[in-house]
């Protein structure tokens, strides 16, 4: 029983990175901009977060630094893609390379540094409840923020006026423009907010999960988050489901290996990817559902007055 509680706890911790990054990319893509630079933004956020945590000893300063770094990177991308209409895919890839190289270069001073004792985390009172306590309530606050963010984003996108405008921009920027909305500024805002969330995801990885800085510490999480958002058909709750599924199956396969289960470890290593793809594809297989949820102008440039 205790082992299941620990498995749940490990799932929540490990899924938060993907969840944060996935929600950030969701915001991006709902506005119609496809940002393939997720990995680069996460790496820069991870470095900024680690550096800030090292200098200040405070997690929240670290997350703020990560968010700022991610937002700045996203802003560069945004200006290139939204105002200068460069190809979104190519620019996103360039952003990934740039983020990787920049973080590696600036980060050489931080490799091999430690952050010191982190102390224990959890919600006081709730964390000692039998089974549910260790399972759900001993997480870093960022895990709960990610869950709250999912609800907030869901409310924002589907229940608020601004969210409607954002979705409108993503579906048909020409119509939004005709109605008088400043499409490019809205898109830039979405891109920067998405970048900030990716930066926070990276900072969470390097400050809470690892916690260390080494070149390439995100090890592909940015790409996984990108795929996750697409497979989750741009719905916040499904992004979170996919993130936790991925994290959970990863921990499960380690657990199975540790118990001596006789399946080749390479097959077990494939399991997180396979299961997430299969589950998400199955629950979103209705073509109408996909058409409704996919932002129609995703990846296409917008020229006002063309």
């Amino acid at each position, binding site marked *: 029983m205790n*082992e299941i509680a*620990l*498995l749940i706890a*490990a799932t929540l911790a*490990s899924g938060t*990175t993907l969840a944060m990054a996935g929600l950030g990319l969701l915001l991006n893509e709902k506005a119609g901009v496809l940002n393939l630079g997720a990995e680069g933004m996460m790496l820069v956020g991870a470095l900024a977060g680690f550096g800030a945590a090292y200098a200040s000893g405070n997690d929240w300063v670290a997350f703020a630094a990560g968010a700022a770094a991610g937002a700045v990177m996203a802003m560069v991308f945004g200006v*290139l893609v939204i105002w*200068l*209409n*460069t190809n979104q895919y190519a*620019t996103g890839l*360039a952003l990934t*390379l*740039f983020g*990787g*190289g*920049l973080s*590696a*270069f600036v*980060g*050489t001073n931080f*490799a*091999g540094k*430690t952050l010191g*004792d*982190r102390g224990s985390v959890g919600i006081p009172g709730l964390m000692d409840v039998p089974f549910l306590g260790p399972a759900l309530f001993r997480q870093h606050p960022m895990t709960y923020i990610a869950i709250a963010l999912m609800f907030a984003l869901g409310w924002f996108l589907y229940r608020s006026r601004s969210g409607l405008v954002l979705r409108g921009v993503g579906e048909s920027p020409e119509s939004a423009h005709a109605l008088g909305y400043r499409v490019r500024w809205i898109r830039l805002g979405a891109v920067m907010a998405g970048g900030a969330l990716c930066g926070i995801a990276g900072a969470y*990885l390097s400050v809470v*999960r*690892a*916690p*260390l800085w*080494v*070149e*390439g*510490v*995100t*090890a592909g*999480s940015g790409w996984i988050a990108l795929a996750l958002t697409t497979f989750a058909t741009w719905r916040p709750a499904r992004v979170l489901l996919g993130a936790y599924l991925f994290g959970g199956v*990863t*921990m499960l396969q*380690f*657990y199975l*290996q*540790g*118990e*001596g*289960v*006789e399946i*080749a*470890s*390479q097959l077990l*290593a494939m399991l997180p990817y396979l299961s997430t793809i299969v589950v998400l594809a199955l629950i979103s297989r209705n073509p109408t559902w996909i058409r409704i949820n996919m932002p129609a102008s995703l990846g296409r440039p917008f020229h006002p007055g063309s």
Partner: protein
Amino acid sequence: MFVERKRALMKAAALSALAIAALAGCSKKEEAAPAAAAPAASAAAAPKADPVKVAFVYIWTAGDAGWTFAHDLGRKEVEAEFGDKVKTTIVEKVPEGADAERVIRDLAAQGNKIIFATSFGYMEPMLKVASEFPDVKFEHATGYKTAPNMGIYDSKFYEPAYMAGIVAGKMTKTNTLGFVGSFPIPEVLRNINAFTLGAQSVNPKVKTKVVWVSTWSDPPKEGDAAQSLINGGADVLLQNTDSTAVLQTAEKNGKYAFGWDSDMSAFAAKAHLGSAVANWGGYYKQAVKSVMDGTWKTDRTVWGVKEGMNDFIKPAEAVPADIKAKIEEIKAGMKAGTFEVFTGPIVDSTGKERLAKDAKADQEWKDKVDFYVKGVEGKIPSAK
């Protein structure tokens, strides 16, 4: 007019994005062929004193505080010893495979007289390049193929792994040890077995759980693997992967672990029980000297505690004095050549006897280790 200005802006933006992407690329130091920008400058224009050019190919960065860090310390020893009689070059983060071939060929073409490749997966690429450059000496770490101008060198990590096992056997309260393994190759299996044998020598009830992460370095994954071992009851961990994540996860959970490849005592105040290290400097200095003297010949060099290549350092305060004394005794035995980690009887996890009583394993036996000793749980996944 507006359109023209926009076009000029786009051109400028595209050019700068291209330049940035070219600069970012994969990180390299000194001359090496990059993707877009200016090609590598002239290779060996002979300077006055004609220093011997020595190159190192690393699998990751020297900042990983692990495997590559240890090799880089060795390289720095070479520089300290030979001063301006040598010129060292490093190329970091070279993936194993076709990329490695390109990098090694490039280094050979640039006039490096001896090239060290520090990972198992560089074996085939290096062999191929060695046949094209008969005057350049190639040295491959942890491999098993040689050529007239290619030698191999290796360390006996199983010796400090055994000593770590002794400490672990004493310090464990649950009698369950954990091991985070990279790939199920003989080198790693030797370490798992040595760790278990060492622990069983002071605590016969010990068992070891193994989790494979299929990578040499991926800190979040290593941390997750360590966490799952701890969740499964292990309270002392050892690893064969390169980062400090396992040690830090142990610290977070109030368990014990060891440093691996280099001294990791600074990373965990309470969890660190000792570090199993390799000191590559001695071998590097010898190899470079032999190239300078012209006495280099292809060989397979496997050094351990005896030659100063391996060590188990910084045992923690918490380790009892009698265990520390036992470790010193074993080190002395290794240095004298009388103590062999793999001494029979050794029985594997299926019950089959692999080494008879009192027999000492030879190099061939050690190279072919493909089993778990009794006490290690699970089955070995088929190797890479």
